[in-house]
């Protein structure tokens, strides 16, 4: 976990990338449902999101907030059954991916949009060599011979810091960090414009986490790809992202540039997140935490989803779910009682 001071430093040392180009990815009112044992889980609840070319958007939220489901729906690989996209659109370069057939979508997967999953230990096929798994994605999207694909795959291995001589080794012969490198190699092999990374470092040791993040950052810059980085770690967001979206109970409750979200006005949930970070300068007996627990996805509260845990909750919050309010340009907050900027994180 990271401290408030760390965040401030990271913030100051970053160059912000804020381009107002056309939208690379535009998600509008996406709704995804899961049916589990007679219950209906609203995993993604009317989510709208925008991502520009070369932009890195951090998607922050607790486990179970719906982040992975959101990512899977972009690629059209939400497990069905039990999941189903019931409403909304996902426009990539203007084309609604949800309306495409599986065959058409396959041309995007791995080539235009690539995904890195959370657990490297289980994301690689144990009975195929790592080299074959990389060359597989190359051959899927390019008309090259097996030997060409192999040499390209070997290049990718070197690029992610693995000796190309290990092309013929099997996944079980690699450590967790190296497996994740292989997965990154697979994802970047066809130069995708959009990289979706679902908590890429969560399952790794802390020492390895920084290495992997640096590698991803470097490669992303070299290839000018945009990235949707899903994480629950604010420190990672501060290091790598240009903009942030915060997800709670299947909804985006705040979105904006990194500076706006970290230093501007606040949704109470985000305020709670920042306030719970330990501060090395202040002397406290207990850490602040957000009271209550995340809501049961099968029994979401009416009105604002956060209201049971919010200390600023009033009558209107209980009955009506707020709309996005754009207080400053590009900074959207979904709340009836938007809070002033964080005390601890002002520059």
């Amino acid at each position: 976990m990271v401290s408030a001071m760390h965040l401030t430093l990271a913030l100051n040392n970053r160059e912000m990338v804020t381009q107002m180009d056309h939208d690379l990815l535009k998600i509008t009112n996406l709704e995804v449902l899961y049916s589990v044992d007679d219950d209906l889980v609203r995993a993604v609840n009317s989510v709208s999101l925008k991502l520009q070319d070369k932009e890195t958007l951090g998607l922050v939220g607790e486990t179970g907030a719906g982040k992975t489901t959101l990512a899977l729906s972009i690629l059209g690989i939400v497990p069905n059954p039990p999941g189903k996209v019931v409403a909304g659109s996902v426009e990539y370069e203007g084309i609604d991916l949800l309306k495409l057939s599986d065959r058409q979508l396959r041309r995007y997967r791995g080539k235009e949009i690539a995904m890195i999953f959370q657990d490297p230990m289980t994301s690689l096929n144990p009975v195929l060599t790592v080299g074959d798994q990389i060359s597989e994605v190359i051959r899927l999207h390019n008309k090259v011979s097996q030997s060409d694909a192999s040499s390209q795959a070997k290049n990718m291995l070197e690029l992610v810091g693995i000796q190309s001589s290990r092309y013929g080794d099997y996944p079980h012969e690699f450590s967790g960090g190296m497996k994740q490198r292989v997965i990154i190699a697979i994802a970047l092999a066809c130069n995708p414009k959009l990289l979706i990374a679902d908590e890429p470092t969560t399952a790794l040791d802390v020492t390895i986490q920084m290495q992997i993040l640096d590698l991803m950052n470097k490669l992303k810059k070299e290839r000018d790809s945009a990235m949707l980085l899903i994480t629950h770690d604010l420190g990672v967001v501060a290091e790598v992202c240009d903009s942030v979206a915060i997800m709670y109970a299947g909804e985006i409750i705040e979105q904006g540039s990194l500076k706006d979200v970290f230093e501007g006005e606040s949704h109470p949930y985000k305020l709670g997140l920042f306030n719970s970070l330990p501060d090395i300068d202040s002397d406290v007996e207990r850490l602040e935490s957000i009271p209550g627990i995340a809501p049961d996805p099968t029994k979401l509260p009416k009105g604002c989803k956060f209201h049971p845990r919010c200390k600023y909750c009033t009558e209107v919050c209980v009955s009506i779910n707020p709309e996005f309010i754009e207080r400053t340009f590009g900074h959207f907050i979904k709340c009836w009682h938007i809070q002033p900027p964080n005390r601890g994180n002002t520059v």
Partner: protein
Amino acid sequence: MIPILFGVVVIIFTLMYVTPGDPAIAILGENATPEAIQDIQNKLGLNDPYLVRLTKYFLGVFKGDFGISYRTGRPVFEEIMARYPNTLILTFSSVVLGVLIGVTAGIISAVRQYSLLDKLLTSFSLFGVSAPSFWLAMVLVLFFSVKLQWLPATGSYGLKYWVLPVFTLGLQASASIMRMTRSSMLEVIRQDYIRTSKAKGQSNFMTIMRHAFKNAQVPILTIIGIRITHFLAGAVLVETVFSIPGLGAFIISSVNFKDYPVVQGGVLWIALNCIVITLIVDILYCFVDPRIKSAFSKKKKRIIATSVEKVGGR
């Protein structure tokens, strides 16, 4: 392997040893003279103590000498070999048929889970493992032989005669292989690397074949191995119903004739076959799952390394 073989021999031998009844009388008949009985008993070593007889039998087995049949007087080994090929043909053809149908049906069933096809196939396979093989055989005979008059019911004089028996056993095999394939595939399909394959843009078909099925092979291979061993033994029933002169039916009739050396030898021979099959399946594992292969090769490297050391190499 060897201890199991040894144990099997001991058990079978001991079982036959404790069987009541004098083999000498069995060979010579009820009206034999006491001298003749004594004579035979000495020749066959029937009065030797248990351990001596066991050892003699064991050594004999290694040389291929399984004793002499009480009924025909010919070497047991000869009698076995005269009928063994039939059982072998029956078993292997059925397993091949079973694998072809069972694996295909299992994969389809798993991929199209919850569909009508899946439910039909699952019911069929459940029926196949619930029905006794000899009854199934009779149903098929009734239908194809009696009602439709397409195929002959008994005998083994040509290809036509093998159709029903192989089909019976094959259907049964495909039922249990299908169940195992289906559950193995379902287990594999839920794994993360399947998701990775889809995210790469791989087609559904190739994802199933290249990623899912390749991983599901180990448990499927296991059950195929088990089915073969069951068949070798259970072919008894089908052989009986279809009057095929195979080893299984021969063992049964020898029991009824109290021809114990044949029973002993026949059972031992089949048990030997089963052990060999298990060994082959173990070797096949190495080719199918690289994790097992590397565990083996690591052991080999260690053994080679230490032996090189011992010999004084560098």
